[in-house]
């Protein structure tokens, strides 16, 4: 898919994020919007997947380690044809398949139930190890928040992925610089993120996480890197695409009301 088409898809993903969160009345728009372009690139360009056969053997897998960005993953899966878009209007409601954080047993295309930060990354390492054992060339992608990097087990996993040379593993870091209580740098400094992964033995690629050329190029470089896992450190803007949410920690975990939703959708349609 070319850059223009990916941008269009990402616009649709963002609109669906906003609509589903408005319907839910709670949830996490900021980190869903900052991750939206990377998630779009994965589902519409990069990964070898088949919506008609979600459990296809040899498929690539995506683990959303920052599970609170579930609305972005749900939206991409819906637009990719895994289930109808309107199903997402049940998000976070009693009886819905679409839990506040993704559940792999309810939703086709979800490979791992996540939500508790730090764990999805380790699970992705285990999945990458399994593909290696089987001699498969499937690739494992995982998306982490920058605040999530404060979890100690992240670095246990980073150490092990390099130790076992998991070059079929790509970790995308959604580096929007914000977390619930404010800036990463004020709450608990995680910078320099890239240097940390490099010191642990990873291939590190720094990109603009909203530029599809750079995102797709990074995936290509990761594929060509042998013997090391790749960390793509993506500079992003929390709330990207909705002016009043951009760069605001306050929009980490708050749903837009009807008026804010109307305004957001109007901006996204421009």
């Amino acid at each position, binding site marked *: 898919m070319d850059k223009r088409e990916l941008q269009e898809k990402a616009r649709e993903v963002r609109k669906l994020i906003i609509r589903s969160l408005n319907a839910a009345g709670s949830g996490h728009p900021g980190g869903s919007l900052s991750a939206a372009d990377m998630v779009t690139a994965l589902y519409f360009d990069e990964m070898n997947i088949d919506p008609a056969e979600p459990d296809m053997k040899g498929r690539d897998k995506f683990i959303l380690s920052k599970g609170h960005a579930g609305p972005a993953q749900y939206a991409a899966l819906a637009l990719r044809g895994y289930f109808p878009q309107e199903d997402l209007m049940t998000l976070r409601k009693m009886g819905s398949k679409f839990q506040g954080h993704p559940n792999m047993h309810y939703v086709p295309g979800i490979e791992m139930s996540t939500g508790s930060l730090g764990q999805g990354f*380790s699970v992705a390492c*285990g999945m990458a190890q*399994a593909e290696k054992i089987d001699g498969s060339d499937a690739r494992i992608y995982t998306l982490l928040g920058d605040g999530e990097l404060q979890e*100690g087990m992240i670095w246990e996993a980073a*150490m092990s992925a390099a130790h076992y040379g998991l070059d079929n593993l790509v970790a995308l870091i959604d580096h929007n610089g914000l977390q619930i209580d404010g800036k990463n740098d004020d709450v608990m400094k995680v910078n320099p993120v890239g240097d940390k992964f490099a010191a642990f033995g990873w291939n590190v690629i720094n990109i603009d996480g909203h530029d599809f050329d750079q995102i797709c190029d990074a995936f290509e470089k990761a594929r060509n890197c042998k013997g090391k896992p790749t960390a793509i450190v993506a500079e992003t803007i929390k709330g990207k695409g909705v002016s009043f949410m951009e760069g605001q920690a306050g929009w980490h975990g708050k749903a837009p009301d009807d008026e804010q939703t109307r305004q957001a959708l109007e901006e996204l349609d421009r």
Partner: protein
Amino acid sequence: MTEKIATRQAYGEILRELGEEYGNLIVMDADLSGSTKTAEFAKLYPERFFNMGIAEQNLYAQAAGLALSGKIVCASTFAMFATGRAYEIIRNSIGYTSANVKICATHAGITVGEDGASHQTFEDISLMRNIPGMTVINPSDAVAAKKLIRQAVEMDGPCYVRLGRAAVPVFYGEEDDVVLGKGNQVRDGGDLTIIATGIMVSAAVEAAEELKNKGIDARIIDIHTIKPIDEEIIIKAASETGKIVTAEEHSIIGGLGDAVAQVVVKNHPVPMAFVGQKDVFGESGKPDQLLEKYGMTSSDIVKAAETLI
């Protein structure tokens, strides 16, 4: 004299057999492979063994990743660190996902001995049985350990297998049935029932001999599968013997005693007494000295039984 073998030794031996039978069996450890006995598997199947270093949270989450990719995973370290340090990972990445991981943890309870309180866990059964869908197994000897670990590997879904450091008497024969989810009546008796698990089953056998000398005829049941628990055998014991003593090398809070009491109170209430670690930490010492000081010997079972008579 009865032969003594540690249940962790049996784990090492059965892994070698299972490794040959199951090409998709993966074994993982956290720098304790010599102690947990997974090193024996590692020697035979190095391509299916992963040492994850001293990093238990990552160990159990990666075990989930491997299991969700079609592998059967036996992931080992000391029970303290498996169920304590990695608890929430086991809960969310193994329990919540129903991942096919067998948490085979060794050095449980006070018989860890000289290493002391930091390494002696009495909370593990309680923590694991609280996780929905988790099967909890506590073998009483080496024969039972082999039979139950085989069944754990054969079933689909998460299991916790509690294993010990110290050599303990072997009283099951190879011909005996030890079936997951089914309690074993080790001795018949009509005056009261001792329901024991793990190494306390052999203590219960000794206790029954002492009680016999005092004219008390005790039934003994080995509950090696604490979850799902064999309700039928417990209800039958309550109704036929009218008194129950539970015995475990674990805290009296949240372990076998509580699990049995729930069945008894709901179905056929009878007086009960509880032998186990009494809400205190342990200390360094020889296993036998510690069992005596903290009240988990055959004579403690006898005393508990006498309070009910």
